């Protein structure tokens, strides 16, 4: 059993009288806290000038996300949550701060509205808004770059990622599936990792906070393994020939496509389960 930190919480209203401490708001807040080390490293790395630039970019992102959350929330009876801040931080850390602000904010709006809000918000949608936003940037403004990660970025991601795995918000099965397939490809093909180093680049960050996003990842045991394996497979597929690229060029389309397929993988797992069940019970 791995639901950690269960603290009792009297609960108003009907059943259940007891609620676990870990509700959506609490989990979202922890998600934001887990993003603080990479944010800090990025701010510290870029020096005073660009650091301010990143802060402005982050503030603008947060404003955009909150605007859309409030607009749709007003219609649907939801209040903006901590996940707005998480989305803004992720986007600010990954998108290129050097782009015209309107381009990035347009991309972010596209992601937040089409991948999240029109489905009813986080938990109802099946795609991560940041992934969709980044994909929009890549397709709509070809040639635009992404943020350059500081050298220690991967290390800063680790504590938060471990906390999220520990809480069960990132599926360990998905990570294992991804790692196994990636290592398997490298072993079989003899290709080398191209692009940035594993710990220096954005790879770990994107896997932990975008692919593993509890709002949109696969939800069955088989689905989780397959989702991880699919991400790895697509990264290999989208890598330029001659290496396996852990940079954005392969990562963003791989995450987008794997995210679209995640519900299908779940559906396959469900169909198999239902068939097995029918044959068992007649």
């Amino acid at each position, binding site marked *: 059993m*791995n639901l950690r930190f269960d603290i*009792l919480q009297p609960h108003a209203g009907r059943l*259940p009288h007891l609620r676990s401490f870990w509700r959506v708001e*609490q989990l979202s807040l922890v998600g934001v806290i887990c993003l603080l080390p990479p944010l800090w490293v990025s701010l510290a790395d870029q020096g005073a000038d660009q650091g301010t630039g990143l802060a402005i970019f982050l503030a603008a992102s947060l404003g955009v996300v909150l605007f859309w959350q409030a607009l749709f929330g007003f219609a*649907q009876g939801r209040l903006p949550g901590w996940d707005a801040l998480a989305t803004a931080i992720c986007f600010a850390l990954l998108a290129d701060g050097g782009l015209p602000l309107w381009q990035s904010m347009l991309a972010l709006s596209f992601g937040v509205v089409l991948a999240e809000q029109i489905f009813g918000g986080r*938990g109802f949608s099946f795609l991560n808004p940041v992934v969709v936003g980044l994909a929009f940037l890549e397709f709509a403004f070809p040639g635009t770059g992404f943020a350059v990660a500081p050298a220690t970025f991967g290390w800063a991601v680790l504590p938060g990622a471990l906390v999220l795995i520990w809480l069960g918000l990132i599926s*360990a*099965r998905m990570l294992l599936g991804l790692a196994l397939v990636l290592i398997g490809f490298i072993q079989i093909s003899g290709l080398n990792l191209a692009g940035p180093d594993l710990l220096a680049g954005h790879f770990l960050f994107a896997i932990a906070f975008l692919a593993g996003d509890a709002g949109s990842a696969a939800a069955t*045991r088989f689905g989780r393994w397959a989702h991880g394996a699919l991400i790895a497979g697509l990264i290999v597929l989208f890598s330029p020939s001659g290496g396996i690229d852990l940079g954005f060029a392969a990562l963003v389309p791989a995450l987008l496509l794997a995210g679209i397929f995640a519900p299908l993988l779940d559906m396959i797992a469900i169909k198999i*389960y239902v068939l097995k069940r029918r044959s068992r019970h007649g």
Partner: protein
Amino acid sequence: MEFTIRQGLDIKIRGVPQKRVDPAKPARSAAVLGRDYPGIRPKYLVKQGDMVSLGQPLFCDRQHPEIVVTAPQAGEVVRVDPVRRQGFDRLEIHLSGDATIGFSHATDSRTLMQATGLWTRFLTRPFGAIPDADAKAEAVLVTALDTTPLALDTAHVLAEEKAAWRLGLSALAGLECGPVYVCQGKDAVPLEGLEAAVQFVSFKGMHPAGLAGTHLDRLGLSGRPVWQIGFQDVIALGQVILTGQLPKTRYVALGGPMANSPRVLRIGVGAKLADVLQDEIADGPVQVISGSVLSGWPAEFLGARHNQISLLPAPRKAVSKGWFGRRRKAAPQPILIREGLDGLLAQDIPVVPLLRALAVGDWDMAMALGAGDLLEEDLALLSYACPSGNDYGVLLRRALDDYAGAS
């Protein structure tokens, strides 16, 4: 047979009941609650002002007059709620006197259980209804362990009531509804010398190791017509055979952070809790839960199938968020996937797809995944742990009712 349940969660709550058994304060009134009798359309056999004896039929089912619900105590009927579409709320008796109906155990088990009203303690799987008077089951599951937080120590009660327990089990075997599986804790000893139909099975593990849904899954009975009954109702049946009368009291574990002295009480069946618990509740706002903290309900009277009363601190008033708050309550809440949710259901059903199907009202999907094997209590742990705060017990009940109505 022995099974170890690996799934589950051990919720720690202050106020675990001690083994000591005390008589409870007498109650001034007792009630029969409509929600204890799912699927019964009552036809009242008594009216307000009547004097009733312990064991006297109060109402029967309209379609099946053999199925009666009897008075839990003797006294004057002071309140009879009208029967509406969704049933009735309660029938209340002001307690006085000791008048008791005697039952002859010469009849067969089925007739005896129906005459005493103990038949209505059966619940069917699937659907969780009271079985029809002439229905047959493929197996009967007796739940003789309790793994919920603050639960009653069943082994202790079984030891005290050994004679009645044995007679009750033997009577269940006489129903000829397949094997009688007695599901006990890991330390309980099987009784010797009972009919071959009575089989003792032991379960160990954290909650939900003590739920009938878990037992029927491990015994390979899912999807089959099975009846479940609590061990105290089997003891009551044994008491009827032993003494000719229904027992007046049940063993009830009193626990929770707001209990002055958490222990086991012998409480009158259906007793008014405010009377019984007069000196038991610590100062401060309290919420009295009849039944398990996970699947019981806030109540004024002891539920017919309940083995525990939990005294929890009353919840703080929900902060009103005005217009948003009201809208928010009505809307279904999103399910954030946590891997740990998988480990809270003993059945091998894919958990998140089941919860999603229930949350969005996709009953066909929920039933295809196996919701028919479940009752509210089986999902209580998921309602507790799911970040969404959805009450899956209520949603499952809607799904089951729609399905039972359609088939």
